């Protein structure tokens, strides 16, 4: 085993909290490499201090304080918590979903609908960031499906969403180091995972809305 291999094995042993095999430490005394000697000295120093450090934590009894805290603000009702409503990202998506549903409801179930009056729905087109009303004079046949409304809303919020994501990117670790790059990719993967349930929720809400529409208004008919 050469010096690099020996130091790699020392590192693995530390990560796995394992003792070295018999004669393992002898390498550092005989190889003549300062890095090996230093690595073993560092390991010995920390191994000597860690037990006292670990045990030198006072014992506490916070039970009554925590229970009093909980009595003042009880846990959230289970029904709300169980749906997994969490995080600012999800709230944003759920707000968007609520917007889609309300807009779809106003636009498609309005009593003004049947052909005689222009149908006005607050549906922005992708290029219509101000969200001005879209007027459809062609009647029921041209009514956008809830999915179409949802798609347009999502396209509409995509621009600001990208800006927010870019802004957040500014505060993430920068630099070309492997650690910084891994940290950034872990963050974005975590964000996508967190958003996934909300996106699923929007899809389900739109499908539910379609089911509730009178057959004549269903986009498939």
């Amino acid at each position, binding site marked *: 085993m050469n010096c690099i291999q020996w130091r790699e094995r020392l*590192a693995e042993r*530390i*990560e796995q909290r394992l*003792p*070295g*095999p*018999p*004669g*393992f*430490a*002898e390498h550092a*005394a005989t190889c003549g490499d300062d890095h090996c000697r230093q690595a*073993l*000295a*560092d*390991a*010995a*120093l*920390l*191994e*000597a*201090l*860690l037990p*006292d*450090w*670990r*045990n*030198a*934590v*006072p*014992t*506490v*009894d*916070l*039970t009554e*304080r*925590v*229970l009093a*805290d*909980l009595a003042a*603000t*009880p*846990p*959230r009702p*289970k029904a*709300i*918590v*169980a749906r*997994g409503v*969490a995080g600012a990202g999800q709230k944003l998506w759920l707000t968007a979903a609520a917007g889609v549903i309300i807009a779809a409801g106003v636009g498609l179930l309005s009593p003004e609908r049947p052909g005689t009056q222009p149908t006005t729905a607050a549906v922005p087109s992708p290029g219509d960031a101000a969200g001005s009303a879209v007027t459809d004079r062609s009647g029921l046949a041209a009514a956008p499906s809830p999915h179409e409304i949802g798609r347009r809303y999502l396209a509409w919020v995509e621009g600001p969403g990208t800006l927010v994501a870019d802004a957040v990117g500014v505060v993430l670790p920068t630099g070309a180091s*492997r*650690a910084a790059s*891994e*940290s950034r990719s*872990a*963050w974005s993967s*975590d964000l996508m995972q967190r958003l996934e349930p909300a996106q699923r929720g929007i899809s389900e809400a739109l499908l539910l809305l379609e089911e509730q529409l009178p057959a004549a208004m269903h986009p498939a008919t």
Partner: protein
Amino acid sequence: MADDLSELVQRCLAGEPDAQRNFVDQFQQRVFALCYRMLGHRQDAEDAAQESLARAVRHLGRWQSDRPLDPWVLAIAANRCRTALEKRSRRPVTAESLPEPACLDSRTGSELAEELQRAVDQLRPNYRETFILFYQQELSCEEIGQMLGAPDGTIKTWLHRARKELAELLRQRGITPEQNDELHTVARTTRGAD
């Protein structure tokens, strides 16, 4: 054991005071130890631990039961401590919060532990948190990675850099295996055990 824990969580969510008491009893020392090591101040650590435990009970519904509960609870405490440390870093340092000079001639185990803690306090946040979670909480690199949202490899790098910096800081304080009889003995024992 996992079933017991799931049942305890369900009972906590139902608002049963006995279950909440049981939960707090079960986790308070670990949560306090993490806060104590991260904040280095007993009163601040008690406050942080209290808030973290209450928050954990309130939000138990967010815990995914197919994952271990300990890292989830500890992550709440670590977040709370990070916030406290950020607030503290914005306050001017007073003479009170400066460490006392170490007495290098008559170091007991607890004094050496204090020396190590002072060195830990000087690490950058990622290294410090990784070191405390690994050695104080005895979490694996994988569990720490899940808690901090970083890959295993990054956690291992942080752990080794933390150890290296700590050894260097301790050497600067005159604490080395060669210069301290007790440590020298341990170093020899370690070699003998290998």
